């Protein structure tokens, strides 16, 4: 058997593991195994590519193994060390690396393929898509990491962005057309590099105006972009595993992006062109009490008494809980209440945390029983029979304005209907508006009591108070 055939078979196995892995990743019981299977397939594909081809100069092997060692060690360390709350930006960072990799391949492969129309199409496609994905992911990373707070927005940014995109496309077409008709198109490399630079610029401009709340959707979209860039490489090298892996991520990523948008009841175009997340802030923030009511305080000991003597509590965790690193002590509170016969559940909004599923990951980290996390559709009918709702560090996902106020920027977003419960306790650090920057009339509801303070400290005090009872 010749090694080309074996390599092809290995790529086939790789493709199958990617499909199986992705499928298993979409079920909670098998997800971890699925990830492992895809990783094994990837390893086989990488090893096969190195060892089943004609041997090359030692210097090249040295560079190859050196690069894999450097990337592998850094990637491993960063991924192991990062805090769970920083997960979204890390995914964005790694996604950007993949995009940059695809773009670099295209930069290298341009000159050798001058005169070859078929190859140039894929080279330019990989270059443009890869650089947009890279630059966009870096901006998303900086935004989520808190290095870039402002959503800088030029006037008519949509028009400007679309113009840049048109210029990029026109330039790419020109480069492909002129470089494929000649054998001596070396001078055209400059234009290819210009396209490359413009695509990077477009990636920045594309993510810049999008508000932080929409960043997960953007990352998911850029994720599928990188998949497409990898698939373009698959075309170029006639490499099946790159094509299957890339395209599958491209289509699955697009579907996932749409699913995330649905969770927020918004369309993808609205996310990209609507630039919500800060636009609404200027409209409604700082209007004070919309219903004219006043805010009621509650002390830690009163909260403890209330919780100790009720039958059913639903906890609504938000990003604030994670930022305060209060998920562990929250679990302690939950176990303590359970011991005393209180029924405790967690209500998980589809976009709780910073990413769909993010809150589940955070709570699972602190050993909260998987069965206690209830998704929005299933928990909403339960609020009516609930004695106390404890909202920790969440705001927009419980804002009734999403149902009642058509002018609100979050109008139409499905919310947790906590206002149906007998009493509501909201833990917040201050009266500041939530991530979407809008006021919440729930705070002024007569049934609502505010428990101000840092989530971790407040819950720790609560646990201590409960233990004395």
């Amino acid at each position, binding site marked *: 058997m010749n090694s080309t055939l074996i390599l092809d078979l290995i790529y086939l196995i790789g493709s199958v593991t990617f499909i199986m892995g992705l499928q298993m990743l979409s079920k909670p019981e098998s*997800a971890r195994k699925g990830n492992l299977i895809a990783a094994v397939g990837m390893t086989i594909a990488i090893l096969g*590519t190195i060892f089943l081809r004609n041997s090359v100069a030692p210097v*090249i092997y040295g560079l190859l193994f*050196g690069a894999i060692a450097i990337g592998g060690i850094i990637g491993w360390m960063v991924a192991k060390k990062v805090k769970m709350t920083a997960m979204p930006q890390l*995914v964005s960072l790694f*996604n950007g690396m993949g995009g940059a*990799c695809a773009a670099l391949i295209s930069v290298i492969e341009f000159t050798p393929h001058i005169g070859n129309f078929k190859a140039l199409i894929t080279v330019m496609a990989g270059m443009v898509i890869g650089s947009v994905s890279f630059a966009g992911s870096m901006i998303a990373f900086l935004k989520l990491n808190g290095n870039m707070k402002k959503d800088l927005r030029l006037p008519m940014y949509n028009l400007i962005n679309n113009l840049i995109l048109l210029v990029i496309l026109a330039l790419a077409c020109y480069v492909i057309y002129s470089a494929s008709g000649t054998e001596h198109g070396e001078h055209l490399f400059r234009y290819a590099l210009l396209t490359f630079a413009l695509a990077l610029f477009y990636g920045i401009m594309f993510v810049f105006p999008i508000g932080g709340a929409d960043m997960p959707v953007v990352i998911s979209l850029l994720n599928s972009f*990188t998949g497409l860039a990898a698939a373009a490489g698959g075309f170029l090298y006639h490499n099946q595993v790159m094509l299957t892996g890339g395209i599958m991520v491209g289509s699955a990523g697009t579907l996932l992006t749409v699913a995330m948008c649905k969770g927020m009841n918004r369309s993808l175009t609205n996310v990209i062109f609507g630039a919500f997340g800060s636009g609404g802030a200027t409209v409604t923030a700082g209007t004070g009490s919309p219903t004219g009511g006043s805010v009621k305080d509650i002390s830690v000991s009163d909260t403890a008494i209330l919780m100790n003597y009720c039958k059913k509590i639903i906890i609504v965790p938000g990003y604030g809980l994670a930022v305060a690193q209060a998920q562990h002590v929250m679990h302690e509170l939950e176990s303590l209440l359970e011991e005393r016969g209180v029924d405790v559940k967690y209500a998980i909004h589809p976009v709780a945390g910073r990413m769909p599923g993010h809150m589940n990951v955070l709570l699972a980290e602190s050993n909260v*029983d998987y069965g206690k996390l209830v998704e929005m559709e299933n928990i909403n009918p339960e609020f009516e029979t609930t004695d106390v709702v404890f909202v920790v560090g969440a705001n927009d996902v419980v804002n009734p304005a999403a149902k009642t106020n058509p002018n609100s920027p979050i109008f139409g977003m499905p919310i947790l209907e906590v206002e149906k419960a007998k009493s509501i306790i909201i833990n917040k650090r201050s009266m500041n508006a939530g991530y979407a920057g809008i006021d919440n009339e729930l705070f002024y509801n007569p049934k609502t009591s505010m428990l101000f303070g840092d989530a971790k400290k407040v819950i720790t005090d609560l646990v201590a108070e409960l233990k004395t009872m």
Partner: protein
Amino acid sequence: MEQLFAFLEAHMQMLFMLILMIFVGIEVISHVPSVLHTPLMSGANAIHGVVIVGAMLVLLNADPNNIATLVLGFVAVVLGTLNVVGGFVVTDRMLEMFKKKPAPKK
């Protein structure tokens, strides 16, 4: 236009795969519960790290005297490895938390 036809002809097999894989990708994750959105995105992120194979091919096919290609290829492989290794490890860390817990004490 003729060139475009030539392109399609040369890549017919790949095109078949492309179209079929689009459907596979959609089908495979169509019933994912929202709790798994983040790990799934992260897992998909690791899988598109397969672009590293392209970066490796660049290096393996490179002329050992062409410094520019060697340097760029080296960087591309580093970036690709970051994507693959980091992606899979992060996904594993997220999913580690979903494993079955011992029954909660009543």
